[in-house]
């Protein structure tokens, strides 16, 4: 693979952002929920990111707070991507009527901010993580469905597909062996960028009090708690947001790099995704 500055930079950023979370799986400097140090301490050698209003170590909370965010985002993209790709495949290969019907469903999903779906689920099931994960998965379905459908429509009259059909290949075979492999690169690009978007959306929901519940930390929730005491110490508001932004920036750069390297003919299929 050719070297690509953006891709390298993106991978470095992502790794830097993931490092605290990965290290946190095996080692933590302190118990993230333990109280008792001096509150609002600025960053120091003992507390590299300072302490919050309860005197809890912000670094330990950042290390643990990323777990749920990353897990939920990854799960949402995986499930939403699979369902969306399946829907898009059906829409792109079943014929006009099914296409219209499926695309209307996709449009309807697209008309809902993930936030509203998550709030609806919060009213139904209470504020836990599953509702957030399902809302984010639903939110990812339309992007993958549209991409797959557009790819199918563009590919289905290409020579190699016609040749396969002429040679007697069935619809399922063509789908698995010819169409989907062609779309693997744009789908991978989409998944990378979608992961960044899902991280942002999860943090926004967590900021609003959905998902992980106190006293356990989550990046979004930490920002909300820090906002109340910003005047006393800005540090607890700076670090969780910075790590989150670094992870998203890394993912976006990787997505763009992959698009440039893997996907020259499909650049039009995976345009930059709106923030």
């Amino acid at each position, binding site marked *: 693979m050719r070297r690509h500055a953006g891709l390298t930079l993106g991978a470095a950023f992502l790794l830097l952002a993931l490092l605290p979370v990965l290290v946190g799986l095996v080692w933590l400097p302190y118990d993230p929920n333990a109280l008792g140090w001096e509150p609002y301490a600025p960053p120091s050698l003992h507390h590299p990111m300072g302490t919050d209003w309860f005197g809890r170590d912000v670094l330990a909370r950042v290390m643990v707070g990323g777990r749920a965010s990353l897990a939920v985002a990854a799960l949402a993209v995986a499930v939403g991507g699979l369902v969306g790709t399946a829907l898009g495949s059906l829409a792109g290969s079943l014929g006009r009527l099914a296409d219209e019907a499926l695309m209307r469903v996709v449009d309807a999903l697209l008309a*809902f*901010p993930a936030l*509203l779906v998550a709030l609806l689920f*919060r009213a139904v099931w209470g504020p836990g993580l599953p509702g957030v994960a399902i809302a984010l998965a639903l939110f990812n379905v339309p992007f993958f469905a549209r991409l797959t459908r557009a790819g199918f429509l563009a590919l289905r009259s290409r020579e190699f597909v016609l040749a396969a059909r002429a040679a007697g290949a069935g619809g399922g075979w063509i789908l698995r062996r010819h169409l989907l492999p062609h779309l693997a690169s744009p789908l991978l690009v989409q998944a990378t960028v979608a992961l960044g978007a899902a991280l942002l959306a999860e943090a926004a929901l967590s900021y609003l009090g959905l998902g992980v519940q106190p006293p356990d930390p989550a990046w979004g929730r930490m920002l909300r708690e820090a906002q109340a005491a910003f005047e006393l110490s800005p540090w607890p508001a700076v670090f969780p947001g910075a790590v989150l932004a670094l992870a998203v920036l890394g993912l976006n750069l990787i997505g763009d790099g992959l698009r440039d390297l893997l996907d020259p003919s499909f650049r039009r299929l995976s345009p930059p995704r*709106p923030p």
Partner: protein
Amino acid sequence: MLGHLLRRVGASALTLALVALLVFLAVDAIPGDPARLVVGLEASPEEYRAARERLGLDDPWPVRFARWGAGFLRGDWGTSLRYGRPARELVLGALALTVPLAALALVLALLIAFPLGLLAARRVGGGADLATVGFAQLGTALPEFWLGVLLVGLLAVGLRWFPAGGFPGWMDPGAWRYLLLPAAALALPRAAYLARLVRGSVADVLREDYIRTARAKGVPGWRVLGVHALRNALVPVLTGAGLTFARLLAGAMVVENVFGLPGLGRLAVVAAGERDLPLLSSLAVAVGALVVLVNLAVDAGYALLDPRIRHP
């Protein structure tokens, strides 16, 4: 042209009906018995059955959906459990804050995006271009509510240049000052995305033959860029701006909570927290309808601007 528009209107109406159906099914799936809530736990089985009958709970769900949808179209959106007022009144009141906030953010974003994008496209690979691309990458990665928290902390709480939150109502002559910081927090990620779109589409247009012709005729550089190229680059940028509307609304709803603005986002969070389903479902349908209508308008505008779209 008319046929294209009619088809789009039909598709939008269908999408809207699906939006309503999805909301209905989500709310309908909620465990709990409205009839039991109405009559209380001590009611006799006869009373309970009468309440179920009166509320129409024993009808099959398509009938209940049709009744609910018809009520919605008539303007009967139900009564909020939390506030005891008509949901329609509450939602429309909140929209009167959220829509201007989103519009202000979009205007700010366009004001930032166009100069940056044009400057970058003038010489792709140059210094201004690299700066714009860097800004675009950074801007789309920043969570808008984090920006909001930092802006409030620095400019409102720290320096006291702006009010830290709340909203005095539109009658107050200083009302706009309460919207400026939230709009700025919302605008930055979108400005980054739109600057990227402007850069891309202007750079594409600059490679066209008619641009070379204009240059050869001696049209000054700023005129080629600002008039000839920009006009043709406008379509994809405005479409992009329109299609981000759903995300813009969602962002506005989060940022409202950062700044304590009494808009849709605040209303939705309160409604979800209190399980105020009549309010939450009307709010969801209203937002869905708004997004569908804006997408329709973008589509129509697109067809008006670009004749090629009309005859696909």
